[in-house]
Structure formats: C-alpha cells, structure tokens
C-alpha cells in the first residue's frame, strides 16, 4: 500500500497544472462569451476544458486509496480537534474520488446508462464537506496561534497602569468616567477590532503555510457552492477561484515548506 501511495503522489504536480489550465479555460470561456467573440473560438475553449476535465478524472483514478491512507495516518494525531477534522476530511475526499471514478467510467462509456447529474451532485457534496472540514481545521489552527501570540504579547508588555486598557475585556468593563456609554463603547470597539485584525494579520504573515491553506480552501469552496446551487456565483468567478487555488497548490508542491502539516 505504501509503495502505491508513493507511486500515486508522483503525478500530483501534473494534475495541478492541468487543473490550473482547466479553470483558466473556464475563465477564458466566460470572458470570451461576455466579450461576444466568435462562437467557434468559444466552442474550442469549451471543448478544451471538457477534454482537460476528463483527462484529470483519468489521472485521479487511484486517489481514493491515497485519501484512505491519509485518513489512516490522521487517526494517530495527538490533537483531538485536528484528528477529527482531518480524518473525516480525508474520508470525504476518498468518497469524492470514488464518485469521480464512477463519473469517469460513465463518461468514457465503460458504464452505460449512468445518471451523471446525480453522481456529479454526490461528488460535489462530498467535496464541499471535505472543504468545510479543512476550513474548520484552518480556523482552529489560527485560533491556537492567536492565543499563543496574545500570551506572548501580554508577557512582553507589562500590564498598563489603567485597568481599563487590559485586553479584549475592555468593552465589558464599565467606563470609569460618567460620559455616555455609547460614545465611549464605539471607539473602544473599533480599537479592539483594529487590534484583533492586526493580531490575525501578524499571525498569518508569520505562518505562510496556514495563510496559503486558508486562501486555497476559501477559493475552492466557491466551486461546489456554485455547482450545488447553494451560492451560485457564475462561471467567471468559479474559474478565477479555481485558477487561484490551483496556482497556490502548485506553489506548495514546488516549495514543500509551504505545505501545511500535518
């Protein structure tokens, strides 16, 4: 099984390049349609996109096994939240790839009379669940890092003389001056918000793997949301998001240190 996983991972790079090209075609097709160019060029681009999609399905034929192996590895993680998120995410990915393989068999004619819409919807549902769990994991990691950063900042700067300026509980404590609460709360809120945003930005800037993974998953989530009809955005936006997430994942392959672990 181990040797199969190693074998499998060797074609991930090309698959990502094909994905980038496929979503570039989607985006290009949408732009051409809006620009009102010749139907023939638009048809060529659409055909190219379909050809790349089918070829990618062919390339993904063994990925269910790889996802199951990843789920098996994720069960041994020590952190319980990470363990839960990653294991279920990999299991959903395995189901997504299984549905994808069935779709490929249907499209190439190996299985006749396949309800392609039904299986397509199924595969996108599993993909959506996997992405939601990945985003949950990203948010959890972000929260842990923010807490670390807060503790570090608190230990670095000594507590100030004014008790009202200590940390995010500011807006809960009653103001010492007799001025109206609303007039004081708003600037206090915005100061807290600004500090919070600065904290998140610092944490993300110093953890590029987490930032990349968060961006990638956020871009990716629009694809199943559009295909399942939950939040339709249109072909152009889906193409742009797909292209962005493919480019980000190519970056993580070319620079392995940018990949979020585990």
């Amino acid at each position, binding site marked *: 099984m181990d040797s199969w996983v190693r074998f499998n991972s060797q074609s*991930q*790079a090309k698959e990502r390049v094909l994905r980038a090209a496929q979503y570039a075609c989607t985006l290009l097709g949408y732009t051409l349609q809006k620009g009102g160019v010749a139907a023939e060029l638009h048809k060529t681009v659409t055909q190219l996109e379909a050809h790349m999609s089918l*070829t990618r399905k062919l390339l993904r034929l063994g990925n269910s096994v790889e996802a199951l192996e990843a789920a098996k590895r994720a069960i041994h993680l020590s952190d319980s939240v990470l363990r839960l998120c990653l294991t279920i995410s990999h299991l959903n990915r395995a189901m997504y790839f299984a549905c994808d393989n069935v779709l490929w068999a249907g499209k190439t004619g*190996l299985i006749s009379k396949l309800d392609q819409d039904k299986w397509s919807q199924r595969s996108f549902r599993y993909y959506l669940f996997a992405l939601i769990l990945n985003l949950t994991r990203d948010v959890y990691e972000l929260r842990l890092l923010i807490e670390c950063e807060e503790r570090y900042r608190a230990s670095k700067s000594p507590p100030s003389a004014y008790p009202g300026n200590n940390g995010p509980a500011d807006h809960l404590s009653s103001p010492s001056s007799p001025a109206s609460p609303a007039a004081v709360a708003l600037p206090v809120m915005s100061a807290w918000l600004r500090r919070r945003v600065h904290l998140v930005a610092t944490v993300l800037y110093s953890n590029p793997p987490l930032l990349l993974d968060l961006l990638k998953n956020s871009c990716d989530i629009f694809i199943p949301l559009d295909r399942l009809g939950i939040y339709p955005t249109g072909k152009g936006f889906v193409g742009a998001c797909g292209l962005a997430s493919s480019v980000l994942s190519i970056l993580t392959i070319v620079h392995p240190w940018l990949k979020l672990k585990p």
Partner: protein
Amino acid sequence: MDAVVKFTNQSQGRDRVFRATQYACALSIYLLQKKSSERKDLVAKLKSLEATMSAGRKLFRLGNTLNSIEAAKRTMQLSDPVLCLCLTVANINRALYFICDNVLWARSVGLIRDIDKEHWSLNASRCYFFSLVMNLSRDVYEIIQLMVQKARKGHFRQKMDQHLSENPEVAEVVIPQLDAFLFLLLESLKSHPAVALDTLKNTCDLFIPLDRLGIYKSNAGVVGFCGLISSLIGIVTLAQPKLKIKP
C-alpha cells in the same frame, strides 16, 4: 529548466500504467474481433477506453520535449563516444517525436485546424523509429562489451569448457562456436538483467512504428501485445530502479 524537468518526471509512473492499459485494450479488441463478432458492445467499450487513454496520454506528454532535450544535454557529456552518439541522437529524436505528438494533440482538440494529420503522424512514427534504432544500437554495444569482458575472465572460461564438454552427443551442438557464442551471450544477459530488459523492451517497441510506417506490417494483435510487454517492462524498471539501464 531543471525544475521543469523534475516536475514533468513525476508522472512517468502513471503514464506507464495507462500505456499498458491502452495496449491491453488494443490486444483484447483484436482477440475479441477474431473470436466472434458478437460481443460488439464490449468491443465498443474497449475502443472507447483505448481512445480515452491515448488522448489522456497525449495531454500528459505536453511537457516531455524539454525532458528529452535535457536528457540529450546530459548524454552529450558521456565519456564513451559510442554511448554518447547513440543516446544523444536517440534523445534528440525523442524530442522531435514529442513535438510532433504535441502538434497532433493540438489538432485533436481543435487548437490548430489546418494541418495534415497523416503527415505529422508519419513524422512522429519516423522519429520514434529512429530513436528506438539508436537505443537498440546502444543495447547491442553494451552486450558486446559485456561479452568481451566476460570472455576475458578466467573462471568463465572454465565454465565454458565445462558446458561444451557436457553433452557432446546432443544434436543441437552442431556448431560448437555458435553454442559457445550463445552460452556467452546468455551468461552476459543473465548477469546484467537491466541490459536484457532494455533490449527486450526496445525490440517489442520497434514493432509499433514498423507496423505504422508499413516497413513490416504485422497486425493490431501483435502491436498490442508488443506494446503491452514493453509497458510492463517499463513499469518493472520504474518500480525496481536496479533494473533500469544506466546511463
């Protein structure tokens, strides 16, 4: 350039599996059509699968020209002149083959419209044929070198004398020199399985362009079988790097 080559190398394993599947389909189609003309739907499915594999592989091979050019640059620096010549010319021909293949892919998806598909297909087969001939020349050179090396070894001569004196009455031993030559050849190949596998792979592969160019017309079954064997050997050499011929 180096990064691009490393990148494109990563899908070689999958490509070999798809190639094996493609030629297995071709062989199965030929056998099914020979046996009975009844199982038309199965034949149709196999044809569709073969076409999908072939089209998919053409797309995967889009970056391989650079790969071959880099390989040619590396082989130009080999010290042995025969190896240098054979491998460099083989790699250049492979690069030309991939260029023709890329043009054919662009034609099949409709990016380029007015090119002569048959002309480019024949050119691709010709380049592939020349690269295989060069690879086989290299194999023959390596085998000759191995045989010469082995013949010089003292304990091998003892083995040879023992073999020749074993069964003098056997009918096969008509020409002792031929028997000695074959024994030397087989012993050399047995001790260097990488060379043996590479020779077998190139010989099997040779039937494909020979049939396509009309030089030695076999049939779809032979082409499918040879393609399948060479793909399986390719998978084995990838899975067991010891069995891959070097350089």
